[in-house]
């Protein structure tokens, strides 16, 4: 029983990070109708930025927050730039062109990261507040994993508030419904899209920064995370934030619980099994409504 609970908890902690990434991906798809493969690259950039910022500001409890937020905001600014310079030109284009452009961004950001930081693995120190483990269920469960669960939950609440309690959220939901109608209502849709993309990048950047104390950061992080995010979002339904939440939990928890019986090299099989099952039952994903 303890073993099960501990795997469950580990899975939820993994799901928290997945949600931060997947929610931005799905948000961007829902509003902008772009499958942004560079979303994982933005996550990786956030992670690398956080390691460099913490080299600079130190690794205390406060510096930890500074570097995470600074990484998030820098990446959000870059996201805005990417939207204005690249994506704006391709909304009306063919899906193939859109995929090509976001793949191009994957290459460019990947090259940039390798050029700036090189290939050696990097990491940041654990902030003292979250160091060590909390004694529970006969073991020490990493405090930081519990913290990630808190951050994930806070992100769920924050996103819910943004989407349902602010005018920005109202416009984002409106854009998911009908972009043109929104423009007919006099909404500055280009600006809205920049904001949405930037918000998605912010969440991804923060997620990247938040894993640095627990994971070693290296090039290749981008593709690793985007594959998972795509699976999560397809399971949950493209464009649905609630779907991203449920999808993250399913993927995170299933691949963690499966470890009780199966070696981790099976995790992809478990995850894709989940994906296939969901798609067989509901081809749109669990909460899919777009298209």
């Amino acid at each position, binding site marked *: 029983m303890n073993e099960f609970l501990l795997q469950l908890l580990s899975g939820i902690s993994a799901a928290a990070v997945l949600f931060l990434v997947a929610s931005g991906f799905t948000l961007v798809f829902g509003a902008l109708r772009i499958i942004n493969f560079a979303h994982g690259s933005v996550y990786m950039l956030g992670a690398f930025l956080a390691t460099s910022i913490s080299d600079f500001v130190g690794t205390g409890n406060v510096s930890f927050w500074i570097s995470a937020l600074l990484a998030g905001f820098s990446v959000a600014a870059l996201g805005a730039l990417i939207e204005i310079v690249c994506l704006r030109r391709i909304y009306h284009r063919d899906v193939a062109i859109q995929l090509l452009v976001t793949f191009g961004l994957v290459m460019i950001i990947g090259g940039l990261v390798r050029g700036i930081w090189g290939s050696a693995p990097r990491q940041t120190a654990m902030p003292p507040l979250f160091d060590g483990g909390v004694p529970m269920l006969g073991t020490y469960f990493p405090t930081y994993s519990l913290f990630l669960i808190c951050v994930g939950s806070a992100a769920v609440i924050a996103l819910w508030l943004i989407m349902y309690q602010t005018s920005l959220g109202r416009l984002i939901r409106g854009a998911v419904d009908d972009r043109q109608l929104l*423009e007919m*209502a006099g909404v500055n849709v280009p600006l809205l899209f920049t904001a949405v993309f930037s918000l998605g990048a912010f969440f991804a950047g923060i997620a990247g920064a938040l894993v640095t104390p627990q994971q070693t950061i290296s090039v290749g992080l981008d593709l690793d995370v985007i594959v998972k995010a795509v699976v999560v979002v397809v399971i949950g339904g493209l464009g649905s934030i609630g779907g991203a939440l449920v999808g993250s939990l399913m993927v995170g928890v299933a691949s963690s619980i499966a470890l009780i019986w199966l070696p981790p090299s099976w995790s992809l099989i478990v995850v894709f099994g989940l994906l296939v099952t969901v798609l067989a039952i509901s081809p749109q994903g669990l909460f899919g409504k777009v298209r």
Partner: protein
Amino acid sequence: MTTAAYPVSAALTVNNLDAFYGKCQVTFDAQLHVGRGEIVALLGRNGAGKTTTLMAIAGFVTARRGKVLLAGNEIATAPAFRRVRAGLSLVPSGSRSLGSLTVLENLQTSAGVSARNGQWSIDKVFGLFPKLRQLAGSQGRQLSGGERQMLAVGRALLSQPEVLMLDEPSEGLAPLVVAELGGMLRRLADAGLAVLLTEQNHGLALDIADRVLFMEKGQIAWEGSASEAKDPEVLGRYLSV
């Protein structure tokens, strides 16, 4: 009225409009104007280019050539949302609404965006369409066609228009609703709004319009008063299939 010079006080003036879908030209040298307090009906067969004309005026279809003056100001190069903010609203065909947003949220999206100090508030829109007040909490996709059309007009009014364009407003609506809508448009026009609407079906249009334009193959082929347009010979020439 047939040869009337364009009044200087026209709310909307469109000159030499050539609208394109990609390389495909749809309107040819289209000219029209709508005065304050005037309802102009743009009629024509399916595929004549009415929708394209409205979309080009609103900025959603490329106009390679032509002037669009809103209260004397050239807006032909402004992005669509700026035209709305300047006072040019379009109610597109098909009674579209933001389906997952509530009626109230639908109205909120356009409230406060306008650059003009207009008279319209959500409360006034609810005054105009009491039904919408009852439905304030319902999602757009749950409404009937008529309710969605009211919502669309309400949304358009909240952007404080000087010119209101409606593309086939009566399409798919019950006759009673059409009559109600017509009466309301007439009242709005009487209060000073310039209205440009299109129809394939001439019933509503001819009842409320001051002036009628017939469109054929992307060109304005006939212009005259509503009573002149009721001539069966004219109707037959431009509308019968």
